């Protein structure tokens, strides 16, 4: 952990009439526990039923991480209307289950992406949108964007193109649904099981790591 994490911070104590009190922000405000891999519900029929419900009700986190975010608003409006496939925007990571990494992810954004991803609940799915998430695309030699997204987060579906049209995104959603229904979209468990590997990769690019190792 960096020095920033160990720093004490003076805050008002709500219990003792506002008396000042020293706290360690990262142990006071965050849960230190590591994520656990949670096995799917017992019983094949229940499991299939739950997977079906997950696939038919995909809540997308409203966080446009790159230029590809411009392709997402048309999805929800009358031209492409994805709500007919059970896909809805959701404004908070706690309630969302699909995270679309739309286009290039700069290192600065990657930090926020990781924080948002870790706040989402299991099962959660990641969709890489555009060539930049696959191999860096036109930013392959940029000094501040990552090249391969799946080294930092478990990705379920990639949609190639620069930019992919909304139709391509809908096709990507179809693939994602197939994966979920087949029970193969276990990204959250994969992330929990290989946390050290993912964290090592993330810390390699994010130099000012001023957050806890895992953001609940």
């Amino acid at each position, binding site marked *: 952990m960096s020095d920033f994490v160990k720093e004490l911070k003076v805050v008002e104590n709500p219990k003792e009439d506002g008396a000042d009190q020293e706290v360690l922000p990262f142990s006071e405000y965050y849960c230190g526990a590591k994520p656990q891999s949670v096995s*799917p519900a017992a019983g094949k029929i229940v499991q299939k039923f739950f997977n079906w419900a997950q696939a038919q009700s995909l809540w997308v986190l*409203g966080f446009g991480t790159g230029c590809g975010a411009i392709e997402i608003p048309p999805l929800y409006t009358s031209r492409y209307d994805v*709500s*007919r496939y059970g896909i*809805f925007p959701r*404004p908070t990571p706690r*309630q969302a289950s699909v995270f679309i990494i739309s286009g290039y992810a700069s290192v600065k954004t990657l930090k926020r992406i990781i924080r948002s991803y870790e706040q989402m*609940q299991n099962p959660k799915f990641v969709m890489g949108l555009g060539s930049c998430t696959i191999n860096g695309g036109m930013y392959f030699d940029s000094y501040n964007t990552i090249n391969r997204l799946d080294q930092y987060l478990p990705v379920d579906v990639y949609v190639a193109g620069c930019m992919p049209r909304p139709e391509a995104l809908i096709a990507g959603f179809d693939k994602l649904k197939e994966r979920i229904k087949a029970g193969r979209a276990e990204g*959250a468990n994969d992330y929990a099981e290989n946390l050290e590997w993912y964290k090592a990769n993330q810390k390699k690019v994010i130099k000012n790591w001023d957050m806890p190792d895992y953001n609940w």
Partner: protein
Amino acid sequence: MNLLIEIGYALASLFLIVNYGLILMGFIQKIVARVHGRIGPPVWQPYINIIKTLSMRTSVSHGIMFYLGPVFRLSGGIGLYLIIPAVYGSVWLQNFSFNGDLILVIYFIFFGMLGMALGAGESGHPFSSMGVTRGLSLTTASEVPFALAVVALAAQHHTLSITDIVAAQQGGFMHWNLVTNPVATAAGMLAFLGMMMHSPFNLVVAPQEIPIGPPTEYHSTFLGLMQSNRAIFASAKLILFMNLFFGGATSIPEMVLKTFLLFMVCIVVGVVFPRFKVEQSVRWFLRVPTLVGLIAIGIYSI
């Protein structure tokens, strides 16, 4: 034995209203989508959403009140529904209506909101607290004309029992409070727009505002509870307004038709008018609707 039958009736009544509420929400989503020129989600989407939230494998708690918030909200919704007679004269849909239930109804509408406020406050998210502040001011403002309309009805019928008010309206359209007390109905229906929390008064839970308001931190099963409550609460409020102003219902089809048309009132207003800010809506409620409510009381106090 009697008690068991009562419990059975209550459960059957609740089962009916949960399903009715969810299907109603699905229909409304579809209708709004059609107005937008979209195809819209399937009618059964609210069911899938609830199954999906219940099937989430992990959840994070922020403390005891965080757990109890959705529980309070749900008990507020169920409590509200179970003291309103859904179908007048029916054995099992009469619920637990009693003398003076109108006062308890006003209390129960607010109860869930307060529970939610405590739960959302403990989640520690600043957006939750902002949402709660907005929600409480909006609800308080819309309760003023509603309470005035209710007092006017009580003065008109000399009773605080919903069943008696419904009984007094039987015998055809000309006996409805809509006709016999149009001023109180006007005040009540204006308050109704705010109580249903649809546009233009949906600032509190609109996803486009500060993310979604009080339930910002709620997820998984907590959210599932709140979604089922939304179905119960909305249909309970519709039934309440049907009973107070539109002659109640003597059969399930009549109840379904009247509540659906009532819901369409706020949907039509919602798709036509853009969203108010909270201070705008508070000011709006405290002007014309409150004035109309005061006039309604004034008529009966002379």
